[in-house]
């Protein structure tokens, strides 16, 4: 058959030069690839052509400021969060023995980590004797975990079906379960371990804090900030919160400072009284969320280093989407590269199959 003849012809004359060409082509492209890759990898972040610019915060972005030194660990915020968001009680692994209640219903809500049932949780750090509050040595400290509402969120970047979105005005990262396919790429990619999926439900949903957007719509505070008795969780515009965080981290031990409650601007949820308090432990200068991965709308200050509070600290200042989207946008810019490659492949395939009678 013709193809047979064709391949016979090939092996006689043309193949030597073609083989040589192929070998050189392989060598050449390997060298080029190696050179290109080396350049790309070696380039500093700002000169790296693959990195897209970071996304700025929306000017009216809102968030929370959590002050670990004010937190008394009462977990009123955990309870309020459950109520406002109609979340079921959760039981930590250590409590299962006595907290079974009648059948499946637990008596106490005792979450130890964020989960599909818990959008907000207070965790404790303790060391040695655990005697002193806000001390890294022989002390203890609290940390509040909830979605930080990133300026450049990974979960939004990875979601294939736009179920995870960032509000253009408030910057709140929202999730729409009706669009979600449950791939859990958001769970995998979140650098702060926030979105969670319910593996115990045949029709499980992704759950994460959405900053009580339903409350904000009614000009009411997010549950956690609403009930916090000490102002450890403060709501406000991220810019205002950032200024407040800077004020606090500059405070000296032994001086009295004013701490507001509720909304820092006194608007959402109505005006509330603040309180004067002695600064008893030295603040870390590090404001968590100011620079981490492109910045977050929710910030935290503490007297204990944040790595001790189990937050990721050794992270870049640009969000990871700057690189992953940068790579994709470079390769697929206007679909020009794929279209060009396709044209080349189609030409070769057309030429090379022309004489084939089968296939």
């Amino acid at each position: 058959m013709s193809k047979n003849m064709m391949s016979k012809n090939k092996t006689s004359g043309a193949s030597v030069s073609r083989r040589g060409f192929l070998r050189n082509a392989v060598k050449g492209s390997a060298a080029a690839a190696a050179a290109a890759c080396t350049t790309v990898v070696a380039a500093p972040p700002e000169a790296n052509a693959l990195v897209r610019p970071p996304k700025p915060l929306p000017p009216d972005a809102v968030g929370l400021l959590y002050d670990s030194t004010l937190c008394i660990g009462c977990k009123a915020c955990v309870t309020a969060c459950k109520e406002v968001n109609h979340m079921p009680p959760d039981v930590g692994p250590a409590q299962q023995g006595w907290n079974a209640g009648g059948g499946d219903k637990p008596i106490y809500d005792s979450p130890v980590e964020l989960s599909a049932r818990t959008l907000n949780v207070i965790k404790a750090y303790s060391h040695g004797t655990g005697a002193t509050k806000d001390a890294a040595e022989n002390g203890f400290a609290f940390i509040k975990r909830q979605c930080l509402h990133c300026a450049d969120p990974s979960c939004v970047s990875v979601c294939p079906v736009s179920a995870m979105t960032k509000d253009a005005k408030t910057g709140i990262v929202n999730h729409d379960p009706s669009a979600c396919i449950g791939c859990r790429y958001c769970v995998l990619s979140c650098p702060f371990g926030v979105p969670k999926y319910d593996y115990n439900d045949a029709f499980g949903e992704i759950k994460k804090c959405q900053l009580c957007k339903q409350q904000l719509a009614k000009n009411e505070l997010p549950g956690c900030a609403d009930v916090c008795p000490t102002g450890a969780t403060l709501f406000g515009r991220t810019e205002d919160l950032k200024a407040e965080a800077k004020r606090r981290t500059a405070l000296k031990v032994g001086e009295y400072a004013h701490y507001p409650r509720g909304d820092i601007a006194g608007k959402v949820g109505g005006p509330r009284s603040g309180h004067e308090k002695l600064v008893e432990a030295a603040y870390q200068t590090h404001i968590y969320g100011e620079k981490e991965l492109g910045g977050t709308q929710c910030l935290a200050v503490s007297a204990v280093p944040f790595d001790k509070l189990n937050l990721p600290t050794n992270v870049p200042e640009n969000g990871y989407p700057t690189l992953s989207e940068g790579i994709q946008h470079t390769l697929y810019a206007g679909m020009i590269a794929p279209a060009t490659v396709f044209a080349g492949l189609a030409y070769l395939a057309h030429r090379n199959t022309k004489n084939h009678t089968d296939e």
Partner: protein
Amino acid sequence: MSSHVKEHHGHEHQPLGGRVLTLPFLICAALVAVAGVILFQRYTQGLAAVSNLNDGYPWGIWVAIDVVIGSAFGCAGYVIALLCYILNRGEYHPLVRPAVLASLFGYGLAGLAVLVDLGRYWNFYHMMLPWYAQPNSVMLEVGLCVATYTLVLVVEFAPAFLERFGIEGLRAKLNRVLWVFIALGVLLPTMHQSSLGTMMVIVGHKLSPLWQSQMLPVFFLLTAILMGFAIVVWESVMASLNFRRPMETPVLSKLAGLMLVVASLFVVLRVVDLIVRGQIGQIFGGPQSGWFVVEMALMISGLALLIPKANRNRSRALFLSASLLLAAGILYRLNVYLIGFTPAVGPWHYFPSVKEIMVTVGVFALEIALYLLFVKKLPVMHAVHPEHG
């Protein structure tokens, strides 16, 4: 008569024939049935009822093995089409149909495995609806690309089907436009296999610096090509042994040369990448460095076997080398997706449950069972002509 004989000397495909209900087929069918029972539980009670998936490790072996590694197994069709039709190496033609068939099952079942893993699978079609599309998502690109490629594989394999059932008119028409599908069949895997690497770029510090790199797309493309070659060699040797067919050693030895090139390129780039990123010291005692050593040892021993030219003609050496390189590719992908991954705020643990493993086994068993059925009933394999004399 002589022309008839000549035709059979040419590139003709034949069903292998023989009994379908053989022992291997029945074992595979039983494994598929076991997976089916487990899946009933998964769909009625949720993922936790059968798997150890958790919020620290939301992706387990169903993603890492069934999809990420399974689709690399499916790259046989990609590399052979590339050689045969794009680089016009006609000598690889006998390998095309078996390779395309293996790819079809590899990709088709990877797609099936996705539906097992998706937590909200009833919404899966949102991936195809433009108003849901989120163009920054690497996964959207992978998903669409894989779905399209599976259709392309169906078209690429269609001639065997049409030939079997004597639908010559359609087959002739299809042959005239097949070049479009062949081109797509090379373009699409190049895109999504590299993107499978890009997918893990965004997990950032959670992936050990031994694997986290913006070179991930390059390494994933290289392992896809390497594993494509290796699976062709591996499969060809297996088919020869099990169906008592002569070895295709001359063609395979050429493939061996290409495997050597790709594997060497992988090793060199991997080391260069580690040096340039300043992470070469991680080899000694960095997180999960033991797995890096195993991965590299498999890769280097696999390629070292192919350095002596004589080995490339020895079926045993070829088989061993292909197995080692395949294992290296599997481990590389497993390292990137599971072993080298540490959740952000832990501690979390993951090791697949027995039921989870049995589902994965079932997916691969289905692949093997269908492959056996197809090569026996459809003209997939090249006709074997008795030696003269």
